[in-house]
């Protein structure tokens, strides 16, 4: 079966997001959605490296929603065919590989995030608007 890269990104994000309600409390799900909506702008303003490092730091303080968001992006970038394929995680790829891979990874993370944002809003607990 041949899928476009957009379909592959969507499938990856969908599978990941649909599994989250088993791991996150409703409040944590709301926090995940808020962070997912903010991440593309953060990447745009500060670069992929700074944005992912920020999520990693937050996630290390037992903030499960940040941990999951970091893991999602990092896992995708380390998939076969992706800029950091074969690396243990995205920060390893960011710090060990060259500028053109970094630029590809940033572009890739942003297009992935447009799916993540939508699926998070669709399938996770929502803030009362």
């Amino acid at each position: 079966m041949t899928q476009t890269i957009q379909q592959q990104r969507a499938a990856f994000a969908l599978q990941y997001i649909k599994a989250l309600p088993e791991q996150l409390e409703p409040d944590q799900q709301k926090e995940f959605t808020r962070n997912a909506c903010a991440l593309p702008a953060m990447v745009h303003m500060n670069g992929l490296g700074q944005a992912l490092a920020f999520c990693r730091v937050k996630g290390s303080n037992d903030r499960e929603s940040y941990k999951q968001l970091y893991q999602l992006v990092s896992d995708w970038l380390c998939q076969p065919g992706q800029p950091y394929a074969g690396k243990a995680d995205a920060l390893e790829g960011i710090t060990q590989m060259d500028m053109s891979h970094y630029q590809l990874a940033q572009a890739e993370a942003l297009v992935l995030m447009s799916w993540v944002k939508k699926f998070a809003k669709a399938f996770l607990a929502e803030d009362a608007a």
Partner: protein
Amino acid sequence: MTSNNALIGLWTETSLHAGAGGSVEGIDLPIQREAHSSWPCVYGSAVKGALRAKAEDKFGKDNTSIKFVFGPDSDSDSASEHAGALLVGDARLLLLPVRSLNSHFKWVTCPAILERLQRDGRRLGIPLDFALPQKIDKTKVLLAEIDGNDLFLEEYRFSTEEAELTNMVQTLSRLSGIDESTLTAQLVIVHNDQFNYLSRYATSVAAHIAIDNNSKTVRKGALWYEETLPPETVLYCALSAYRSRDDKNSLPADAILNCITQDLLGASPYLQLGGNETVGMGWCKVAINQHQQA
């Protein structure tokens, strides 16, 4: 039909948000871009609207020249009588200001942008005489003067190479209104692919919120991200004027163009483009480059 043409340079003095409407991507309110290159632009309809708004402010809505130049008011009964005699092109990106870790900001452009500028000049009969840069390596940048240090643009490091840019600087200075000495110090030419990357990601994105006036806290759900072109961006726009299409009191092409270049922009060479006018956005300094044709 003979036409009179001008290239007008637009040098943004404040942030500019020519919005593309909503987005399904990461940024909620992105700016207008060309589909094939993703370079930022301002659509011709937006530029024409800004020119007309300025003209109506200055000369009054019922001024007959406005009808000849821009066409009859679309709200009036005569809207279908004839078209305007002024053709306004998209405002195209020429120089993108990019922050640099180790220097004052740089005005960045690339061979593809410069080559297109020359093609636009040829079409309009406005000579833009400078040599296009040679091939550039992706890890390098061309500068008029180098100081031996690598250059950082955003978070990327480039090695520098000196290039003879005198003619190009003169042309770009005339087109934009930026001093030659300033351009010499700040003009940077990068590989087309690097430019594409910078023009996507070196724009500014700001978070906006709405405050509930009673509680002075953020209204629920009122958070959005808005992209703008930063101040110091340089765009240019093609104007072509034809004889007016109203068959009774016809104005020749040169008079139509003069309505814009002299009467409208001559005394106050500023134009407000794009949205968020009431928070100071969209103010451009206008430079006019004209070449009279027979």
